[in-house]
């Protein structure tokens, strides 16, 4: 058997590795190479400019403005989404009042879970268009509701630099929460009921239960959620592009949109866009590493 091992390993490992190399690694490496050129994208001509693109990047006010928005997304979206996800998931698995000692969800748990998960089924494009209509100042659902309760001057949501960014952020949270409700819910189902029954007998409140029992036991899942959401917060491209296209006056711009706009939008500086992409790559990487490091805790195993 020992002699036959290498061909076997090679035949199983090489094709996927080759595919990975061609379709994942090489484009990444190419982006690094292109980011050092002044390539304009529609001819084969590209001259090496060294790190000039990165120098421009450092002094590009629009890029910094977009990064600032990404930083806000990074600070707000994961926290709010995970908090809401945990809250809804614990309501669905142990929020019920029936039988003080029993641990059950609120009535209609299955239905709620379905409803929460619904945005996840829709394509992001549909979500963006749906909410664009909801936010529409003249015929939108939101302003309609505000007028119905007697407000006369309703905001122009996506057209107002004070609100546009937060409107997109809200949609981002809305479209993500459902998935984490289901994820956390599934993880909570795996926690042995005896633990809850024991602490309930000891007289713990629901808040204490969540803080002292559920969250520590869910920590691995929360960590995964954290990293996913942090990476999503550094993107946010589709929602922003479709709902506001970065406006008004760049108030809802994000770094992904800057890159797209630089290559396919208002200009076609592919070299510079690649430099933005490379910066994004390192940002995302550092965020992921940081999230993993800071969230590391001892694993709890049920026995």
């Amino acid at each position, binding site marked *: 058997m020992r002699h036959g091992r290498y061909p076997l390993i090679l035949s199983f490992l090489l094709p996927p590795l080759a595919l990975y190399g061609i379709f994942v690694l090489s484009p990444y490496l190419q982006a690094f190479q292109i980011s050092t050129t002044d390539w304009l994208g529609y001819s*084969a001509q590209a001259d090496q400019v060294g790190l000039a693109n990165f120098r421009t990047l450092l002094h590009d006010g629009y890029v910094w403005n977009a990064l600032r928005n990404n930083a806000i997304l990074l600070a707000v979206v994961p926290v709010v989404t995970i908090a809401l996800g945990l809250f809804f998931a614990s309501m669905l698995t142990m929020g019920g009042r029936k039988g003080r000692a029993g641990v059950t969800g609120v009535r209609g748990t299955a239905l709620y879970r379905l409803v929460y998960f619904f945005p996840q089924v829709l394509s992001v494009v549909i979500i963006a268009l749906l909410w664009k209509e909801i936010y529409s100042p003249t015929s939108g659902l939101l302003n309609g509701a505000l007028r119905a309760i007697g407000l006369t001057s309703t905001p122009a949501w996506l057209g107002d630099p004070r609100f546009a960014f937060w409107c997109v952020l809200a949609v981002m949270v809305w479209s993500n929460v459902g998935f984490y409700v289901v994820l956390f819910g599934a993880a909570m189902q795996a926690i042995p009921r005896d633990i809850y029954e024991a602490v309930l007998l000891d007289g713990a409140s629901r808040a204490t239960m969540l803080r002292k029992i559920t969250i520590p036991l869910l920590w691995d899942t929360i960590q995964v959620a954290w990293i996913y959401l942090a990476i999503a917060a550094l993107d946010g491209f589709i929602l922003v592009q479709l709902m506001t296209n970065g*406006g008004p006056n760049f108030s809802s711009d994000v770094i992904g949109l800057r890159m797209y706009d630089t290559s396919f939008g208002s200009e076609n500086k592919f070299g510079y866009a690649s430099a933005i992409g490379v910066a994004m790559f390192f940002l995302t990487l550092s965020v992921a590493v940081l999230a993993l490091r800071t969230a590391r805790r001892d694993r709890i195993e049920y026995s």
Partner: protein
Amino acid sequence: MNRREILRRSAAAGLLATPAAGLLAGCATSGGDDKGDAGAYKGTKSEQNPLGVAEDAPLEVVIFNGGFGEEYAKAHEAMYKEKYPKAEVKHSATQEISKTLQPRFVDGSPPDVVNNSGAGQIDFNGLVSQNALADLGELLAAPSLDVPGKTVKDTLLPGTVEVGSYDGRFLVLNYTYTVYGIWHSTKLFAERGWSYAKTWDEHIALCRQIKAAGIAPWTYAGLHPRYMSWPLISTAIKLGGPSVALAIDNLEPNAWKSDAMRTAADAWHQIVKDRFILDGSPGLDHKQSQTAWCQGKAAFISCGSWLESEQKDVTPAGFNMTVAPTPSLGSGDKLPFEAIRGTAGEPFMVPAKAKNVAGGLEYFRTMLSRKGAQDFTRKVASLPVVAGATDGVELPFGLATVVKALDASGANGFNWVYNNYYRKLERNLVDAACGEFFSGRISPAEFLDQCQKGADSIAQDSSVKKYKRAA
């Protein structure tokens, strides 16, 4: 093999992978070097075939599938095939011209005809500066396909060649003739007894009257506020003459802060100050604002002549949309009230590296024939750049007003092209400034400052090729 060994080997593999990837990257950006004319199709020039089309050469056409659809192009392709039955015509349509064609430009194998339009349009500044477009000069000199005794150039409406020229070379054929103006519904105006105002003071008085009647005088596409820069710049040009536009196009210092622009911005600020704009307009996109206008929530909207076909589905019967020029500021205006902005739009191009350049030019000759142009007008209710293409064609109401406005404007028509030269300036920078200005967050002076700052940033950007045009 133990784990350590695997790690060591994969590290070595990683080292090997890097130069290989470098090679790959090299392929991606260095493919399609000048192959010269090898593989290009050429035929013999003759009286019947002035462009030298190879009869059996295949022709590939890529159409932007937007407001005009793709049916009109299929008809043109059928006409081409009628003349060259041996040629195989390949047709495709997409909404993402840039993303679809980018790899093919790099690869050196672009299609023969590209309708470079829509939001996914390729920036012309980039294409021209990379010499990616074929010179269409030969087309202009060729005889018209079905107007005897005239060259193709003779059949074109004024301004068509200028707007498609970069540093004197005609590179882009803009096929439709677009008029930019202020639109209103003559039905609504007749019902209320209003009439369109010719001077700015009258316009403001009319706005007051409209507002008193419970209708918002104006609405605009708040998510694409550059639509409002068109009437504002038009007002300035009518006041100060075409040199106002020339200075802006040539990125002259303080072009945006000229006296004419200043006066025009002050005038337009009135409709913001007096709250003549439909509440919430800053949050509407172009479709939403146009629909609010069609529903009678607002009286005026600024748009190009594609408005009628874009709003076809939601326009009530008998709405009678009508285009009108911007009001004159006063008796000191250099251009009369009738002067309106008209320009060739909907760009078509033949890539320089196309296999069948002659075929592409011949396809344009087919489009620009009287038959091809009239067919286009019938199919999409828009004006092509061919003179007389509307003769004998029954026009829808809005387009008929466009033709009338163009006739009245005559030689006083004007245009600007900074948006073609420097796409980013209009699409991003002026756009953002308009958003702030028309939602009332900044003053006219701040608005012009912001536009000027944008223009200066383009002027200083050494990676953007600059173009100059003469009056």
